[in-house]
């Protein structure tokens, strides 16, 4: 049974969410669930790749929010911008313009639980639309702290 206060607040909450969408948001904003499972990479697998001396390293792009990146990010990853917003998506396109279409790229965000991430599917869709063929997405189920930092995978700060 739902809490009476939550029941009473439900219409208010729905209206609030609809009215509060921030700023310009990309029309390509899609749920993360739209990304094919075959293109996902698990944190443990990416961490093992980074640890390996012989494995070729992908270009890793963070497509989320700067304040989160500044606190902790994957070493060597580049901050691009929040791909769920038009400005961030343009920054991603600008960065991609300098790359060969067969560049191995891993994108990640981790701002929110996977199903709520506003950035990751937009970034994935944009790179595919640009013709990139080797794009993989780091699957972060809950958030970057819980799924990457806490397990002890390598972290850098700043930027």
């Amino acid at each position, binding site marked *: 049974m739902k809490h009476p206060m939550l029941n009473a607040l439900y219409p208010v909450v729905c209206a609030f969410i609809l009215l509060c969408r921030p700023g310009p948001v990309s029309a390509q904003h899609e749920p993360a669930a739209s990304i094919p499972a075959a293109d996902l990479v698990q944190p443990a697998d990416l961490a093992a790749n980074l640890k390996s001396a012989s494995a070729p390293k992908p270009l890793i792009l963070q497509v989320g*929010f700067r304040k989160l990146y500044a606190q902790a990010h994957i070493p060597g990853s580049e901050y691009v911008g929040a791909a769920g*917003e038009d400005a961030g998506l343009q920054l991603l396109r600008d960065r991609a313009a300098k790359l060969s279409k067969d560049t191995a790229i891993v994108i990640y965000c981790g701002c929110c639980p996977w199903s709520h991430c506003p950035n990751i599917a937009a970034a994935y869709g944009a790179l595919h639309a640009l013709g990139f063929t080797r794009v993989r997405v780091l699957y972060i189920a809950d958030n970057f702290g819980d799924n990457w930092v806490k397990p002890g995978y390598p972290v850098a700060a700043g930027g």
Partner: protein
Amino acid sequence: MADVRVIPALFCLAALALATPMLDTSFAHDSALRMAPDFTRTDLDGKSLSLRKYRGKVVLLNFWATWCGPCLIEIPIFTAWQNTYRTAGLQVVGISMDDDAAPVMRMYQKHHLNYPVAMGDAELGELFGGVLGLPLTYLIDPDGRIVGRYQGEPDLKQLEARIKSLLPRH
């Protein structure tokens, strides 16, 4: 037969356990954060916001952002709690982790949030052990101890019950 000399020791251990403030199990490993670190920021109204000045109240410190869907579900509920429990000693404090203040200010003004909101940054995040995903909410007791850390979407019914149990004038 059990050695009767261990009974006083067991009694002391039990007493110690009962006297120790209850912590959410998700937070218990993070003993370094039992006292809420103080910080001072300027809130969206231009007033000084210091965590220390809320000693004596239960503080619900909510890290959020306008781009965070689950955060937007919580905010009207926190606003309602602030109304309901204000006189009993609750103070909600919002820290936005948006990169830009403009959408935060729009939301704050349009929806008349009834508690102070300030812009956060990496330094403030690190003070709280890293704000590496949202929403993230801390429950702080009237003595300034962190008694709950809620990463992601908390059970709001349980959280409300916990707040009520801590309120000094409830």
